């Protein structure tokens, strides 16, 4: 196995996901199978190859810095699960 329970726990925290312990073995097995499958990339010589992020050559797209109308506050908040006084409201972040 390439993937350990610690690996899964670590990546779950990074992903802000809880993996229930009874589902962990299946996740580990599937991630392991997947990583074994993509190991075929190791056979490819990429020593002199530059990475591609976008398929088309797009570089530094600029536009004029002009103020234009944008969503008003009410519209921007219209889908908020919880809001108050024109702000998004979240559970307490800092201790008292």
């Amino acid at each position: 196995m390439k993937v350990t329970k610690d690996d899964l726990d670590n990546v779950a925290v990074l992903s802000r996901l809880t993996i229930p312990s009874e589902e962990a073995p299946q996740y580990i097995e599937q991630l392991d199978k997947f990583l074994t499958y993509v190991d075929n990339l190791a056979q490819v010589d990429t020593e002199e190859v530059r990475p591609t992020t976008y398929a088309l050559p797009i570089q530094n797209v600029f536009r004029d810095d002009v103020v234009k109308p944008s969503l008003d506050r009410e519209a921007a908040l219209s889908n908020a699960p919880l809001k108050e006084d024109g702000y998004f409201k979240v559970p307490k972040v800092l201790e008292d």
Partner: protein
Amino acid sequence: MRLYNKPAHVLHDMLVSGEITSVQLTQDVLARIDEVEGDVRAYLTLTRDEALAQAKAVDAKIAAGEPISFLEGIPGAIKDNICTKGVKTTCASKILEHFVPPYDATVMTKINKENPVILGKTNMDEFAMGGSTENSGFFPTHNPWNTECVPGGSSGGSAAAVAAGTAIWAIGSDTGGSIRQPASFCGVVGMKPTYGRVSRYGLVAYASSLDQIGPLTRDVTDCAHLLNIISGHDEMDSTSSDVPVPDYTKSLVSDVKGLKIGLPREYFVKGMDPEVEKTVRAAIDQFRSMGAEVVDISLPHTDYAISTYYLIAPAEAATNLERYDGVSYGERVDGEDLVEMMTNTRSELFGEEVKRRIIIGNYALSAGYYDAYYLKAMKVRTLVQQDFTVAFRDVDVIMAPTAPTPAYKIGAMIDDPLQMYLQDACTVPVNLAGLPGISIPCGFSSQNMPIGLQIIGKPLGEETLLRAAYTYEQSQNFHQQMANLGGKEA
């Protein structure tokens, strides 16, 4: 006379001549929805009242003698990952179950200028992750040709609606085959344009360097018209191309004499359904008989494209889906503190496949694995792209199957994600290279399930694709056949 089974260009002419009204047409398609939607389930949201109001407005305009644009008064459907102002846009995810966008995607702004009739939002794999529409957070869509089979995905609702006659045209999105493969499974025309040809502003992002919006239609003529409407530069999407948009309907010319077609030997793989291979080769023979030249080519890095895609797409997805944190939009599941609230929200409301891809993506991006997986995949992506660049020095288009099999039974692959990923072997390289690709109907299996021919073009080579596809379409009638749906055909 039933109208739901006609292509948009025919209906447009009937509207212009006064033979039909938009209300008649819209009512006919809504009646078709009443007849078959219970079996197909292509829609997540139906906007019947708005649709009829739009139709009435168009009829008033026609009655006043005003000219109408191509899509005006013609009912269509939009994939539910494209933001529609004031109409729920869920991405088939519980986490966006009640999300109502406060703005329109650029494609919607462009489409709405045409005054079409919008019937609703179509089902999909959650966040476009999947190839069967079984990963919808709400319910699966069924293939109109055999409701025990999947419609393909992730734009399965859009393809099924066009095939079932519950929409005349539809819009989808394609990240690794999500327009072309369901088009193939449902027997309709589906095009993924060149990366950058259509603005992605307002398309809920899955994998931003691969996503592209495109049309699903009854025939190639409608495809060209839709492409005219949705293409073009948009300052809201800095990856959109500023190359001028040609009139794609000028490419609807029946002539492939001298067209050079490349057949990549790597795409006719072992394990491919023999009926698919036979049908696709017969279509290519048809091109040869119409004067095209067919040569064998090689795309040597094809074997690595699936691995490359399934590292890059989840890595981009893991990043894009960070925004679903229960704060600014979407649903929330409470927790003791901020991090617990975010974790609970994501854990309870994302589906299995979405979580699996987020885990894969964050693993590939995490410290210690980045070079071996993500960076390596981006380098191999360069090689996949170079394969095409080299091939296109000698050929005008590349032809291959769209999918290695016809539509399979619902549930057949759901427990084996890796097997499902291999279904995408013929489509993902096209997204990695940013090329245009179209799937057109080219025949049926012995079980009477549609089979699609994929035509792949050079960057911004949509005109050549359309000409080739149109020429083929003129030579047969596969595109005119419609799903029977248990005898519910008119």
